[in-house]
């Protein structure tokens, strides 16, 4: 595996060094280099938006720190939860006195570290509320939603909650928007090849040539089924069916669709998939009003894609369209 790295044990440090050089609007917190905050955070009176997770998913998580987006992020080792202290330091960095919304994904390590961070925050007198994303329909059956993992739908939750916070929402309102967003989001992934953690040096798991893993997780967690690879249109059908039936989505719904490449799958193929997804949704009477296609949430150099669909209401739709600037997502103010 040919990589552009120095010491495989220092990839996160080296990445942060480059990131901070390239983005003067981002900075590490004093005392904790594993917390990246926006230059303007905390903003007095604004609810702080915090997230965090393992590295290797870039631009997630740190690429969503930005204006009208996430205020501070806790950065973990590759595919491993940030420390409790880092979550706490991110919370501190984002706290402008109006409380902090900590919006993260449903993984054992993240859950535990956030829990400990909340204890620390309580001791420090910072009001924190959390929403844990569980949008991945493939990770547990319907009825057992609390066990589902959070995947690319997290981005949608950060986007809407941050828009609410930027417009002066209270902590309760921000949490409500985040909660509603993730409750109305369903995601599923298809994996086409493995990835290699530089410090480990061998593939994290294995997918045969000619096979695909439907429902794969962001770290290669096993999916629902391994089967012979199908045309993109069939992949789209598999994914759309799994998602649409779960919420369920139906005729007349307006949705945001986010297709993310997992790392090595070209943008060309992501658009091929999007074409079929949009067609299937249209056939089901579901209108895509916010389409997002790109490498939004990756798994190192895995091949594959994830699909996330969010059922919008008016508030969520306008939150999705609210201007923001970050590495991973920029919504420009109109007119230019």
């Amino acid at each position, binding site marked *: 595996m040919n990589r552009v790295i120095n010491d495989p044990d220092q990839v996160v440090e080296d990445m942060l060094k480059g990131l901070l050089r390239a983005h003067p609007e981002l900075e590490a917190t004093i005392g904790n280099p594993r917390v990246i905050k926006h230059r303007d955070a905390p903003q007095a009176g604004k609810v702080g938006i915090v997230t965090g997770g393992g590295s290797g998913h870039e631009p997630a998580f740190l690429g969503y720190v930005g204006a009208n987006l996430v205020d501070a992020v806790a950065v973990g080792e590759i595919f491993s939860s940030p420390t409790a202290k880092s979550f706490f330091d991110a919370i501190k960095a984002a706290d402008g006195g109006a409380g902090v919304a900590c919006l993260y994904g449903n993984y054992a*390590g993240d859950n535990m570290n956030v829990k400990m961070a909340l204890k620390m925050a309580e001791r420090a007198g910072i009001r924190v509320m959390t929403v844990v994303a569980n949008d991945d329909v493939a990770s547990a059956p319907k009825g057992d939603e609390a066990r589902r993992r959070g995947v690319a739908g997290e981005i949608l939750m950060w986007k809407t909650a941050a828009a609410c916070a930027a417009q002066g929402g209270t902590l309760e309102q921000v949490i409500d928007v985040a909660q509603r967003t993730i409750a109305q989001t369903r995601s599923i992934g298809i994996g086409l090849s493995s990835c290699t953690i530089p410090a480990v040096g061998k593939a994290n798991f294995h997918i045969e040539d000619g096979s695909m893993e439907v429902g794969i997780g962001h770290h290669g967690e096993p999916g629902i089924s391994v089967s012979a690879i199908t045309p993109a249109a069939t992949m789209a059908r598999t994914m759309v069916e799994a998602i649409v039936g779960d919420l369920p989505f139906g005729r007349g719904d307006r949705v945001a669709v986010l297709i993310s490449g997992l790392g090595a799958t070209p943008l060309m193929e992501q658009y091929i998939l999007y074409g079929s997804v949009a067609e299937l949704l249209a056939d089901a009477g579901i209108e895509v009003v916010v389409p997002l296609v790109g490498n939004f949430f990756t798994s190192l150099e895995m091949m594959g894609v994830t699909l996330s669909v969010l059922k919008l209401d008016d508030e969520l739709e306008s939150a999705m369209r609210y201007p923001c600037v970050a590495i991973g997502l920029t919504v420009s103010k109109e007119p230019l």
Partner: protein
Amino acid sequence: MKTEIELGSAGAVVLDLIATINENRAYLSEIDGAIGDGDHGINMSKGFSQCRDALLAQPTLPGLAESFDALAMTLLDGIGGSMGPLYGSVFMGFAETLAGHQRLDAQLFGQALAQAVADVQSVGNAQVGDKTLMDTLIPARDAYLAALSQGEDFHTALGGMVAAAEAGWQSTKALQARIGRAARLGERSIGVLDAGATSCFLLLRTLGSSLQSRLV
């Protein structure tokens, strides 16, 4: 009869715990390799070593409560994943219970142990039988408290704790993992020891003997 430990001069107990983890670094990773991702020794040793550096950098070694606190905070600060919060909770439970006390007696240690177990369980939500470090920790606590209620002294109760920890640790071999990384393997997780249960036994054994040796 020796019934107490001077907390102010017992900080070295934590150094003993650290030494145990570092000595068993490779062994712990090897066990984790069978049904996990093979990094348990690395994870643990990373956090524990950071604490060793921090403690030794002090002009004088802090007391046991402060040393437990230092260990808890370094774990919460130094290792992400699950080990930071889980073992961080364990040692924070000890630290918080011991805080403000001059001496550790059998009663107080029982409270500390109970607190530690309650804290780690509230974070990790694992039960006996899930094939995790709780399979070591819960029987150890139960045995210790049972010994106390039967009127055993501190030294003997610690011995009972370690014996139960060992039995609990060994019980993980026959268990199917229901939590953590190994749970994915289903039945294939049966037949080998659990890594966290192993480190937990090693820590409790060292804790027991280190405390016993300091009884006055």
